[in-house]
C-alpha cells in the first residue's frame, strides 16, 4: 500500500460517513438557545438614551479641558533678566565704593571699638 492508496482509504473509510442524528442536533441547539438566553439575562441593560450619552461625553470633555489643561513652563523674559542684572551690577559697584574707607577712618573706628571693649565688664 503506497501513500496514494492510503490517502484514498483514509478519506473513504466508514468513520468519514457518520452523520448527526436529528435528536443530537436538537440537543445541541437546545444548549445553544439556553446559553443565548442566559447571556442575554446577564448582559446589562442600557438605561441611558443616546442623547444622554452624548451629553455626558460633552460634560466630561469640558471638565477635562478646564481642570486638566496641560501645565506649560513659563517662558523667560530676556529683557527683564538683563535689566535686573544691570541694576545688580550698579548696586555692587556702589557698595564697592562705599566700602573703600580711608585708613584714618578705620583706625578711629578701631580705637572706638577698643574703648568700648575696655568698658565692657565681663563679670556684670
Amino acid at each position, binding site marked *: *500500500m*503506497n*501513500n496514494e492508496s*492510503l*490517502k484514498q*482509504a*483514509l*478519506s473513504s*473509510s*466508514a*468513520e*468519514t*460517513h*457518520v*452523520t*448527526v442524528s436529528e435528536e*443530537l*442536533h436538537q*440537543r*445541541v*441547539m437546545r*444548549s*445553544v*438557545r439556553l*446559553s*443565548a438566553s442566559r*447571556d*442575554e439575562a446577564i448582559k446589562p441593560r442600557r438605561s441611558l438614551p443616546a442623547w444622554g450619552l452624548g451629553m455626558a461625553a460633552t460634560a466630561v470633555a469640558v471638565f477635562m479641558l478646564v481642570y486638566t489643561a496641560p501645565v506649560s513652563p513659563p517662558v523667560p523674559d530676556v529683557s527683564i533678566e538683563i535689566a535686573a542684572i544691570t541694576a545688580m551690577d550698579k548696586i555692587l559697584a556702589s557698595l564697592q565704593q562705599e566700602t573703600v574707607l580711608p585708613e584714618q577712618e578705620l583706625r578711629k573706628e578701631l580705637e572706638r571699638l577698643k574703648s568700648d571693649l575696655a568698658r565692657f565688664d565681663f563679670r556684670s
Partner: protein
Amino acid sequence: MSATQTTSEQDLIDRARKGSVDAFEQLVLRYQDRLYRFLLARTDNRADAEDALQEAFVAAFRHLSSYRSRYRFSTWLFTIALRQLGRLTKRHPGQEDLHDSIVCENPGPEQLGIQDQHKYSLWRSARDCLSDQQFTALWLFYVEEMQLVEIGSAMKRPVSWVKVNLMRSRRRLLQVLQNENSEHSTNRGEVTL
C-alpha cells in the same frame, strides 16, 4: 468553497454575532457532521463525542465575536472542538472506549461483524498505533483536507511539527497495515490449506 458560499457563510456569522440563533443553526447544520465524525473517531466513545460536540457549538456561539476570518470557519470550529476534547479527557481519564465495550467472549454473527469492521477499519488502526496528536493531524489532513498552516493553527503547533508528524504517522500506519495484511493473508492461506 465557492464565493457565494463564503459570502453567505460570512453573512450567517455576522447575523449569529448579533445574536441570531437561527443563523447559527444554519452554521451548525453545515458543520455538525464533520465535527461529529472527527470527535467520534478521536474519542471512540459516542457519549463523549456527543458531549464534546454540544459543548463545542455552545462555546462557538458564545465566543463568536472572537472569530477572525484569517482562517476558515471550519478551522476555528475544530480548534474549539479540540479544546473541548482536551477538557473532556481531563474530566474522564482512562475511560473505557466503545470498541472495548462491544468485544465479548462468545460473539454472535452481528458482534462478529462489528468486531471485524473495527479490526479492519483504517482509522481504528490509526487510533491504536498513533498518538492523539498524530491522529488529529492525520484526520485534519486527509478527511478535512486542511492545509498544514490551518492544522498548525487548530492544534497550536508549528507547521514543521505538523509536517514531521504527518510523515511519521503515514510511515507508521503503512507499516502496521503491511503487517496486518501479511497476517491476514497467512490466516487465509491456513484456511485454504
